[in-house]
């Protein structure tokens, strides 16, 4: 409702500006036709505004081009492979061993970017199938069906290239995030995420996005972007077809849904990607031309990396709300170094700034040479919607609900004292801490028994120093997976400062399951 109203307002505004001051898209297209058009990339626009001011920039510049090239998992391609003889109504299908889904009738298939090969999972997936097809390579299709009176065929094996497809359209339901977070990892182990490989104990970080070159960031109120906006998509002309899923404009995390003809695209701007132990994705190149219809847009397209902030987020905590460790701007991120907890570490980009620049430049040249005309959206992207979390019907239990108080000892204590405590408290695990309560190790009843058998008297000789731990806000499921993985029966619960706040044992978890 709101954005319909907004569209009316926009149209009125455009009508007014047609008469008086301001620029219209029709005027801009006329200038493209006569070759009289002034186009700058977003980076050039920032320099111009800085040197000559917004007013001059608005007068001189008609269009600002943007660009981004990054992993966009919610991507895929719809293909129609034509009817076989006898015909088949495909139930399940695989291309190069990647399962593709069958969202409609008979022979329409959707190649999802994150679907992984059954023979080469994590290395080859839907994103690579799309890239291979665009590159002109031949792929193998296999399909099965139950067979019907009108579609009797039950099995299909064939090869295809893009020329054999009736339609081959990129249909991405969430692309081009306005900005994204900077990821790091507090855990004691390497984790592999969709934000790349994160080394233990905050030893590196990663980020994504082109910052000041990002398409949505240059028109943050979506004055010119919406259904029907013509864009650069994968090296060809494509369209915005609406807001993307999880579009979250109020938090400056806008997204778009896009469509484009893959047959015209280039593998230079569409690439499969593989994230170790996470899965496959599709790298998509997108560029949006921002028509400078008013002075406000001239000012907005002058936004600099220094002004775009994002959160540094701890991906070591596998929860929906991950801990935020601070804020950082894109100028710092692009410098390659970021400071976390007072320590400066290197930060990697997962998206390509080089390609983002090339996209903005290419789009600029298309407009200058008259091969790309701008289009006004039929309806702009919503500016007031929110992205809600999932409604869950099953209750998730977290470690703090199940853990109990830990029995504690100090490194310099006598083994005998520890043995007595094990008996008096009737426990199997004692957590070793320093004076401040920070974890230093673990001792089990088995360790004490072995010490007696081997005649050891010093506690320090029998402590297990490298201890796997959990946190109060970790799910019990994650904690129990950790125990199973490392063949252990208890995990000390520690807070962010490594102070011991409890203990969770496999017994606690069994009790929970038995309830």
């Amino acid at each position, binding site marked *: 409702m709101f954005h319909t109203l907004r569209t009316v307002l926009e149209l009125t505004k455009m009508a007014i500006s047609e008469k008086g001051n301001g620029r219209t898209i029709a005027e801009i297209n006329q200038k493209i036709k006569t070759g009289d058009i002034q186009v700058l990339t977003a980076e050039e626009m920032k320099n111009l505004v800085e040197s000559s001011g917004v007013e001059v920039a608005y007068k001189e510049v008609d269009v600002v081009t943007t660009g981004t090239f990054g992993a966009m998992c919610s991507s895929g391609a719809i293909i129609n492979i034509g009817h076989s003889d006898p015909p088949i109504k495909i139930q399940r299908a695989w291309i190069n061993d990647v399962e593709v889904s069958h969202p409609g009738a008979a022979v329409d298939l959707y190649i999802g970017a994150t679907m992984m090969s059954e023979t080469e999972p994590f290395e080859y997936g839907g994103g690579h199938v799309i890239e291979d097809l665009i590159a002109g390579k031949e792929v193998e299709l296999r399909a099965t069906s139950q067979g019907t009176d009108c579609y009797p065929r039950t099995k299909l094996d064939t090869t295809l290239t893009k020329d054999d497809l009736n339609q081959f359209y990129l249909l991405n339901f969430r692309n081009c995030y306005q900005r994204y977070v900077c990821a790091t990892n507090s855990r004691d182990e390497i984790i592999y995420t969709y934000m790349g490989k994160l080394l233990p104990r905050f030893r590196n970080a990663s980020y994504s996005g082109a910052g000041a070159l990002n398409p949505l960031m240059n028109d943050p109120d979506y004055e010119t972007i919406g259904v029907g906006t013509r864009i650069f998509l994968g090296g060809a002309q494509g369209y915005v077809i609406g807001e993307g899923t999880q579009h979250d404009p109020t938090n400056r995390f806008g997204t778009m849904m896009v469509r484009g003809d893959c047959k015209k695209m280039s593998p230079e701007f569409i690439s499969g990607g593989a994230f170790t132990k996470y899965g496959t994705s599709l790298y998509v190149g997108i560029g949006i031309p921002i028509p400078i219809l008013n002075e406000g847009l001239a000012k907005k397209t002058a936004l600099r990396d220094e002004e775009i902030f994002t959160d540094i987020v701890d991906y070591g905590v596998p929860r929906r709300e991950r801990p935020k460790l601070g804020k950082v701007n894109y100028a710092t991120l692009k410098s*390659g170094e970021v400071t976390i907890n007072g320590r400066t570490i290197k930060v990697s*980009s997962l998206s390509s700034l080089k*390609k983002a620049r090339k996209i903005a430049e290419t789009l600029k040249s298309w407009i200058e040479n008259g091969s790309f005309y701008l289009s006004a959206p039929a309806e702009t992207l919503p500016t007031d919607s929110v992205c809600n979390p999932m409604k869950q019907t099953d209750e998730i239990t977290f470690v703090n609900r199940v853990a109990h108080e830990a029995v504690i000892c100090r490194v310099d204590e006598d083994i005998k004292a520890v043995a007595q405590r094990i008996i008096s408290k009737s426990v199997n695990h004692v957590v070793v801490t320093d004076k401040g309560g920070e974890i230093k190790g673990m001792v089990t009843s088995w360790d004490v028994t072995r010490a007696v058998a081997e005649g050891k008297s010093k506690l320090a000789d029998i402590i297990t120093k490298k201890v796997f731990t959990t946190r109060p806000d970790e799910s019990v499921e994650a904690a129990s997976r950790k125990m199973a993985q490392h063949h252990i029966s208890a995990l000390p619960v520690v807070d962010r400062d490594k102070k011991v706040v409890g203990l969770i044992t496999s017994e606690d978890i069994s009790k929970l399951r038995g309830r």
Partner: protein
Amino acid sequence: MKKVDRILLRFSGAIVEEPITAQVILELGIPIRIVTATVNSLGGDILIEVPAIHLKKIVKAFRDKGVIVKFPKLIEVDYDKCFDCGACYALCPVDAISFDEDHSVVFDEKTCIGSPCGLCVDACPARAIKLVEQHRNNPK
């Protein structure tokens, strides 16, 4: 910084027990930096860094003592596959990966330490980085 060169020393089982590296250093009086070493009683590979101006002398000294000397390629980057994201950049412990002016990713093969590390390899979403394994008895 003085220019340095990297060479790979390959010791057979017959000579691996000898303190050859130490002998060369003492005889020539030239400092040698050991970058990585994989050695056992069957033989071993030692990657060393030497002052470029003394390269010839050092190579000769090792060869005279029966050591196979190679100029190793530790890493192979497929620049056709690489799309210059830089996911590898922050993982490199020796700062061998950087960006040039147009934001292309650049590998300094002379700084890379190769197979004992390899942190960047599985972080590359384009799968463009390969370690060149320095297998012993490789006829290459």
